[in-house]
């Protein structure tokens, strides 16, 4: 019975329990409690991992190092806060009769299953298992996206399912190729999919095969990261599902997909002498970043708009990881953290805003500050944070990323800055009228739990003001892991 069993077991247990439980109010509470316990367990895990820096479980099937344990904690944390938000939110949805009891059961158990899949993907040492977990996460979220059973949600779910399914299938092909490359190199052939082994023998892998494999894995996991032009499922899925789901999708799923991509990149970089993988990631990252920044203008649906902003930021991270200098990787890691915190906080407020106005269309949400100041200010400040205004953490990471860019690819920094400005304009021109001004008549305040927003934004703020020593060291270990050379 080690900590990992708890981390993985609790959500799994939650899945089964909540699938059986009928009363959705109790389920809501249980959802929160189980997630919180998972968070606790992951904290303990983190503590144990941080002092001896790599742990193996279940004869090397699972392993934890600084990288994935940090993401584990993040996942558990956002999962918990979102669960806190989802309780009153879904209760309100039930009241207005958008979802029935049966589907609430699906919702809660799938929520836990989704968490389980995420954690499994993060902690597994076996790339095949990682793939399985990703696929499972897709299946779980497909159910969540189609929760409302409206034509739009069905459509969104179908597109999500097919696109990610096909994409992930290619990822599997990539995995097979990788296995094939390792098969003849690694002595114990059934260990040939273990990431730790692959990393160890990376130098001897056949470069041609690994590069082919990386292409497929890039397409596969890139689809899930939401890199343009593979991103098309993302806005649909985000906008049509229940908002807590959008929060965890943006905050977690994309991160995990990117995590998988990076794991693979490490191996591929080990086997190739060229930096082709890095260039590809930079290209797609930049492409998504620029494209999304223009997409932010003239959108009608608030949730769609923020999903584009997620694409934008994932693009930025991918760009950073692709660049691969220690500073860039450090920045990208930081950006991962602050983005998932901020973005999930934003989705929380957006969810409440939509409930207040009874619609998701931007031009019908007005004067939030008058109707419900907490939501209005939350949305405004969250937007300012995600737009990269100091003293919020997003600014710090973008600042570092920009520095890294200037040091290595000076001219790209112009593109970055331009699209940052464009993106900012797009965000604010849509958000400001929603928050300020006169409110429509029918708008009434709803029962909202702003605790997650406050916690997240405070965390982001403090990260912007000062990055604590231990966190810096933690990130530094990860940087060391990814790039082979530390920053501090």
């Amino acid at each position, binding site marked *: 019975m080690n900590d990992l069993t708890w981390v993985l077991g609790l959500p799994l247990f939650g899945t089964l329990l909540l699938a059986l439980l009928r009363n959705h109010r109790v389920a809501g509470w249980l959802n929160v409690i189980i997630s919180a316990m998972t968070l606790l367990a992951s904290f303990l895990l983190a503590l144990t991992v941080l002092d001896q820096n790599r742990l193996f479980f279940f004869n090397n099937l699972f392993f934890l190092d600084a990288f994935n344990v940090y993401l584990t904690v993040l996942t558990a944390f956002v999962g918990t806060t979102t669960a806190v938000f989802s309780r009153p939110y879904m209760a309100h949805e039930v009241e207005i009769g958008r979802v029935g009891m049966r589907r609430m059961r699906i919702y809660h158990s799938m929520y836990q299953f989704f968490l389980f899949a995420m954690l499994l993907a993060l902690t597994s040492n076996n790339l095949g298992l990682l793939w399985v977990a990703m*696929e499972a996460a897709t299946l779980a979220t497909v159910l969540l996206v189609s929760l409302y059973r409206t034509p739009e949600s069905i459509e969104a*779910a*179908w597109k999500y399912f097919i696109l990610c399914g*096909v994409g992930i*299938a*290619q990822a599997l092909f990539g995995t*097979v190729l990788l296995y*094939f490359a390792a*098969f003849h190199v690694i002595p114990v052939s059934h260990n040939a999919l273990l990431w730790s082994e692959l990393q160890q023998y990376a130098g001897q892998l056949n470069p041609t095969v690994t590069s082919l494999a990386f292409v497929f894995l890039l397409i596969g996991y890139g689809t899930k990261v939401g890199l343009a032009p593979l991103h098309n499922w993302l806005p649909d899925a985000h906008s049509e599902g229940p908002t807590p789901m959008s929060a965890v999708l943006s905050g977690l799923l994309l991160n995990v997909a990117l995590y998988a991509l990076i794991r693979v990149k490490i191996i591929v970089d080990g086997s190739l002498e060229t930096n082709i993988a890095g260039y590809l990631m930079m290209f797609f990252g930049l492409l998504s970043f620029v494209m999304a920044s223009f997409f932010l203008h003239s*959108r009608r649906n608030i949730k769609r708009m923020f999903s584009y902003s997620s694409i934008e930021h994932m693009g930025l991270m991918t760009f950073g990881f692709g660049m691969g200098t220690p500073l860039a990787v450090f920045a990208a890691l930081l950006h991962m953290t602050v983005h998932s915190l901020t973005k999930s906080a934003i989705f929380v407020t957006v969810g409440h805003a939509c409930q207040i106005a009874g619609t998701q269309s931007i031009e019908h949400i007005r004067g939030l500050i008058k109707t419900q100041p907490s939501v209005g200010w939350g949305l405004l400040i969250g937007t300012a944070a995600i737009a990269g205004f100091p003293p919020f953490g997003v600014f710090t990471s973008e600042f570092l990323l920009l520095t890294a860019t200037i040091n290595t690819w000076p001219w790209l920094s112009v593109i970055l800055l331009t699209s940052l400005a464009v993106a900012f304009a797009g965000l604010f021109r849509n958000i400001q009228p929603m928050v300020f001004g006169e409110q429509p008549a029918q708008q009434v305040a709803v029962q909202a739990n702003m605790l997650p927003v406050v916690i997240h934004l405070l965390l982001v703020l403090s990260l912007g003001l000062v990055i604590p020593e231990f966190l810096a060291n933690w990130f530094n270990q990860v940087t060391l892991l990814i790039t082979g050379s530390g920053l501090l």
Partner: protein
Amino acid sequence: MLSHLSLYEQAIFVLAALLLYTCFSLLAHTRLLDLIRAFAWQGVLLAATCALVAWVLEQPHLYISAILTLSLKGFLIPFALHRLVIKLKLQHTVEKVSSPTTVLLSGVGLVIFSYYVALPIEQLSTEITRNVIAISLAMVLLGMLLLISRSQAVSQVVGFMAVENGLFFAAVVSTYGMPMVVELGVAFDVLVAMVLFGVFFFQIKDNLDSLDVDQMNRLSEVDE
């Protein structure tokens, strides 16, 4: 030169060729039931390959995956699809593919392309694996071509499964299958996916009373 190869390898080649043929027949068939039948054949062939490898190269665990494949891809899924098609009264619908010949020709082009891609893989193994990888790559690409060229939800599912078949073939022949955990996981996922597809067919049918995915265009950013 085929004569240099061992009997086993020749057999593998034959199976590979057959699989490729099934892919093309998938592309060619415009009636759903034919499509599903061809898909079933593909599953059977895959299982056969699996068994062959298991028997010749003494890979006992491949027997399990052979059985899994046969039962899932050979019978269960085709059967389920068949039932669904009947239930949804789609057995008589003939899909309108814009220009079938172009599709087939581009399919041929894809095969050539995948050979070109797989060409650099010589060392570390006999060219059999290289060809097998080329074939499976072709199968994957053909599956995607199927997905693109067909507008029926059912045939998209078939295409999706065909893609998986392709990479499974690669896994079986070049690396004698994956570790057991992965095998089981994949199989489980495919099963669940199938169930979900089933559920979705009905929901799509309810919502836009046909399974034509081209009619799913509510969510778009055009004309904004």
